[in-house]
């Protein structure tokens, strides 16, 4: 309820006379003893009162009439409230608005509902409202036939600036969009708000400048996965941890969108913040998804337990693991018994004395290299040299890569598989040497179905009569889960709440209404007196 003003407020002083209506001259009552009080009470109630009610009601009625007349004479009115007299609402019609936010609800439907709510709040008769949709760089008036769904072109909000400049000073231009990047669809009335006549430089909140994600594992290396839906430009990203300095990410993002893992070395802790290399904010409709997790522990089951010693001797004598591994990778072989690590030579050193096994042996094949750089650089599937006679009988057929080997290899080595540009599987010509020169992320195993099969068959040949399981499944990775909500990325700056629009409200007098009310009360009092006279007669 707005403020209340009076044209002649001094007339309200007459309300001070109101107690006179309730003033009752003190009368002398004759005391009378009786034992029929209950019957007297009934009699008074039957007469229309009881305990003075018959006299209280007419006094209340009279006082209501008096108050109503006095207040009406004082001329109450709601004063005019200055504010926006026109409302232009622009809905973001980019494809991202079709994202479903709930059952039967999308961003587009939410935006429409909020715009209609805003229109209702302004009041249709006093503040006329018009709706538009921003489709690409075009602002189209929204009709019933064209407003059912968002369009196919991404919206360019910069087109709003000249549009808003056309609006008068008493016109509010409201843009309903979903924002960009990881900023969630604002639950409150968060939106971008332009007032008419705003200069270009004053238009703010075009998008978020950076995205921040808390790091629940500040003491260990983490993998940062992010995807960026870009437009034509190829931005350079920078990253910082906590309040440390910004570092440009050594990424050259391809044009296609996808998920890019990035290994972040152990740092000083604190939240990770991703931003564009410059000071510019992300463009609208750029969609940045951040996901943080520690690197998985890769494990592959393979070798029967009684062959562990044989395998260790083989690796030491024939594969040359006691010496420095061939470049460019470092080969690490771990031999496990159950969950216990029996030996993990840092550079392939294997101690056969500690490899007496009873139950089973896990052969963990993996490397410790700069995964992020290499993987991103060599992103793609494994290319097999399927024509190599060493792979004959391994059922690899039909594909001949153009470039099998790049770089120098020791004499007698041949590359059987490559991961991107790097050689992945190198086998000696005598079929006695095995080396892994690539990175094998656990997530990629399903994309490289031949790799473990190939390794195991090869080892089976190496170990002679040992039975190897060629059909194997990777063990579930060790994943550390963080608290729910801790890994959510937040846009920086946070989505701004819409400014409160104060709509124009015209002045409204209340005196006629009060006069009608007083008239009704007078009629009520008149009929009451008439009815009481009729019952008495």
């Amino acid at each position, binding site marked *: 309820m707005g403020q209340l003003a009076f044209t002649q407020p001094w007339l309200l002083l007459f309300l001070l006379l109101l107690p006179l209506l309730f003033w009752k001259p003190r009368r002398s009552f*004759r005391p*009378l003893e009786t*034992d*029929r*009080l209950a019957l007297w009470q009934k009699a*008074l109630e*039957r*007469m229309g009162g009881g305990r003075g009610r018959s006299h209280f009601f007419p006094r209340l009625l009279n006082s209501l009439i008096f108050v109503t007349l006095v207040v009406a004479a004082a001329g109450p009115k709601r004063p005019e409230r200055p504010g926006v007299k026109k409302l232009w609402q622009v809905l973001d019609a980019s494809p991202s608005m079709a994202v479903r936010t709930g059952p039967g609800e999308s961003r587009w439907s939410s935006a429409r509902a909020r715009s209609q709510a805003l229109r209702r709040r302004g009041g249709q008769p006093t503040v006329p409202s018009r709706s538009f949709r921003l489709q690409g760089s075009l602002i189209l008036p929204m009709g019933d036939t064209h407003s059912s769904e968002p369009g196919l072109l991404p919206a360019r909000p910069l087109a709003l600036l000249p549009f808003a400049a056309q609006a008068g000073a008493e016109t509010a231009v409201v843009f309903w969009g979903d924002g960009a990047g990881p900023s969630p669809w604002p639950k409150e009335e968060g939106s971008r708000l332009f007032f008419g006549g705003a200069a270009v430089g004053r238009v703010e909140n075009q998008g978020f400048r950076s995205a921040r994600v808390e790091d629940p594992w500040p003491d260990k290396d983490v993998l940062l996965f992010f995807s960026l839906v870009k437009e034509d430009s190829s931005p350079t990203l920078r990253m910082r941890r906590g309040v440390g300095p910004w570092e440009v990410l050594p990424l050259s993002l391809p044009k296609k969108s996808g998920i890019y893992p990035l290994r972040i070395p152990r740092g000083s802790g604190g939240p990770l913040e991703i931003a564009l290399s410059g000071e510019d904010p992300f463009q609208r409709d750029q969609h940045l998804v951040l996901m943080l997790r520690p690197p998985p522990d890769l494990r592959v089951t393979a070798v029967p337990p009684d062959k562990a010693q044989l395998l260790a001797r083989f690796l030491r004598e024939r594969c040359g693991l006691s010496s420095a591994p061939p470049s460019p990778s470092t080969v690490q072989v771990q031999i496990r018994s159950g969950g216990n690590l029996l030996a993990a030579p840092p550079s392939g050193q294997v101690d056969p004395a500690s490899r007496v096994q009873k139950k089973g042996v896990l052969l963990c094949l993996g490397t410790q290299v700069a995964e992020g750089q290499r993987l991103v650089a060599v992103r793609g599937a494994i290319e097999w040299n399927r024509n190599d006679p060493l792979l004959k009988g391994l059922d690899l057929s039909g594909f001949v890569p153009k470039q099998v080997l790049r770089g120098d290899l020791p004499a007698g080595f041949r590359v059987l598989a490559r991961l991107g540009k790097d050689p992945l599987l190198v086998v000696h010509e005598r079929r006695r040497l095995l080396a892994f020169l690539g990175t094998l992320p656990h997530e990629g195993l399903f994309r490289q179905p031949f790799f473990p099969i190939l390794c195991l068959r090869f080892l089976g040949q190496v170990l002679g009569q040992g039975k190897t399981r060629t059909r194997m499944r990777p063990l579930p990775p060790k994943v550390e889960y963080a608290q729910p909500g801790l890994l959510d990325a937040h846009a920086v700056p946070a989505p701004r709440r819409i400014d409160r629009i104060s709509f124009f409200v015209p002045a409204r007098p209340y005196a006629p209404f009060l006069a009608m009310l007083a008239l009704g009360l007078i009629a009520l009092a008149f009929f009451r007196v008439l009815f009481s006279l009729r019952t008495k007669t």
Partner: protein
Amino acid sequence: MPRSEGADLSAGKDRFDQLLPAFLDLPFALPRARELGRVGRRIRVEFGSFREYQAYSPGDDLRALDWKVLARTGERVLRRFDDWEHRSLVLGLDLSASLASRWEGLSCLLRLYVFLGLHAFDSVELLVAQGGKLRHRLYEGVGSWGRFRAEFTGMHPEGKSGLPLLARGLGRISKRRPGILLSDWMPEEEALLAFSMLAGSAFVLLFPRIPLEDFSIPISSLALETKDGARLQDPETGVQLDVENLVHALPAFRKIQQEWEASRRHQARSQGLPFLSATLPDPEGDTHSWLPFLHLSERI
């Protein structure tokens, strides 16, 4: 007009006391329930073995006169036997403080009933409930009238209502003895409780109303000022009720009072009890003004 009743009674010059013997000549007797006839005898009846002869005194029952002795010797003697049936009247009185408004007439009515009871019955038992206690008084023979008159001067309404206590006491004495119960029958729930306790007995329930409550008495004769308000107060509970215009509200009250009496009468009848109501006359009035509280005697 307030009366200094106690002083008059103690002096023995009460006009109503002087009026009482005149009631004996009237063909009217105490109100009785219909069951009274089948329960007791009208007069004292002696039976059993012969006990003694007793000298005749005027007023004795002539049926006990030994005619043979009279014929033989000319002396009038009465034959007395060793067992007899005693006839007594039980009078119950709820003497709570709320009775104060009708005590002026009710005290006369009580004296009238005791007086008639002492002459018509062998004894009169008076049970008075007052202040949560039940007092029991027994008056035997006409000669005990003086004792009653002396004790009567100390009676005045006070305390809470003892109607259920009184009904329980009356029921304990006897259910087959005639009696009269005087009360204002308020509050209603206690009245209904008393009705149920006395169900099937030979009691007459009597409500003595005052002229203010009688529909047949014109308001103009009540000496009420037209625009006078009244502050009604129940002396038992202390609750007050202001009536702006007593004359204006009186017809409605009388109508409700009439409905209330009809309702009590109906409820008492459903329990096999006669419920009588009559207006207390002016204590200065003659004997005929008290006839509504008496029944036509069967001697006629």
